């Protein structure tokens, strides 16, 4: 899922300081699962915005709404139910959702309530960790299913580096050295010799360094 966390309230209050009516729009997709931007978090945010504005001697009317997702045109269309009732939308979706609203509603001001962090999973209740960098050229078949792009601090393709000590990363001792884990995991399948194959210099153009990416499935397109 896409993992995100709420922006500092001072930043959000600054965004809406000139608004008198705001639609706080939750997303029932990934950000609900990572407890950053679902209906519950949006309700808390609405309360905090009202309190923050009140502290500044202002009043603000907030409508709370939610969409199934904010990353599909069909769901964005549901925003029309609140037409004329707000000056701006504060979206608790990930950055994709904010972009989609901006793309599809030319006359609507939309603000992000979250900082979109990474693609990750739930390590334990209340803890999420990065697992994938969305680099567009997966090497997991070579690394025992563990991603060196997302989980090595240096995104090394031929690890580990010299800073790996006791299975921990030199950048952060609380982080596992993923290359040590790749070695151990490949070893458990008697495949550690795979690591002796030198990976070629990587073409990062699929990772966004070649500009915004796009996927087209012509078997699915209508036009």
């Amino acid at each position, binding site marked *: 899922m896409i993992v995100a966390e709420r922006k500092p309230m*001072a930043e959000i209050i600054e965004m809406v300081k000139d608004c008198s009516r705001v639609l706080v729009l939750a997303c029932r997709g990934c950000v609900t699962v990572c407890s950053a931007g679902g209906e519950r978090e949006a309700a808390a945010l609405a309360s905090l915005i009202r309190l923050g504005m009140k*502290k500044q001697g202002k009043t603000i009317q907030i409508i709370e709404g939610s969409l199934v997702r904010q990353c599909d045109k069909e769901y964005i269309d549901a925003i029309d139910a609140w037409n004329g009732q707000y000056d701006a939308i504060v979206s608790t979706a990930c950055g994709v959702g904010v972009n989609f609203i901006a793309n599809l509603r030319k006359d609507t001001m939309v603000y992000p309530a979250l900082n979109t962090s990474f693609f990750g999973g739930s390590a334990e209740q209340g803890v999420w960790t990065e697992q994938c960098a969305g680099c567009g050229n997966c090497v997991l078949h070579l690394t025992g299913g563990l991603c060196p792009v997302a989980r090595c601090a240096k995104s090394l393709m031929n690890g580990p580096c010299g800073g790996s000590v006791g299975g921990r990363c030199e950048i952060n001792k609380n982080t596992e050295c993923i290359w040590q884990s790749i070695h151990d995991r490949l070893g458990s399948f008697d495949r550690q010799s795979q690591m002796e194959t030198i990976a070629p210099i990587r073409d990062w153009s699929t990772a966004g360094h070649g500009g915004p990416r796009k996927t087209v499935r012509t078997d699915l397109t209508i036009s």
Partner: protein
Amino acid sequence: MSFEPKITLFSCHYASQQSCAEKGKELQQLGFPATITLVRVPCTGKVQVTTLLQAFEDGADGVYVVGCPVDGCHNIKGSVRAAKRVAAVKKALEELDVESGRIEMFHLPRGLHPEFVAAGVAMDKKIRALGPSPFQS
């Protein structure tokens, strides 16, 4: 002009049993501050962040939660969850540049005991010192 605070207390019915004694009069007789409005909940684990924020929106100058002891919650983890939510609201208040001491968590034993009154007296004293809520328009 003297300031009479409005304080909202969320307490589980185990920790707040004393509020039922003597037809509800015993707390008053023991000096429980009249500035405190008690909201009894089945378990403080039921109290959400939004519940606590709503109390401030409704005009509370201070809010506190009284739940079971950390290692003795009737519902195992309810009061621990409540404490984490109180901590989350403290952090949010700080983000709004408001004193985090306006909300507190207490873990108290069930039954009739002086600590329940003492916690109320302590909150009343603290909120009086902090003054009116900055959220009053």
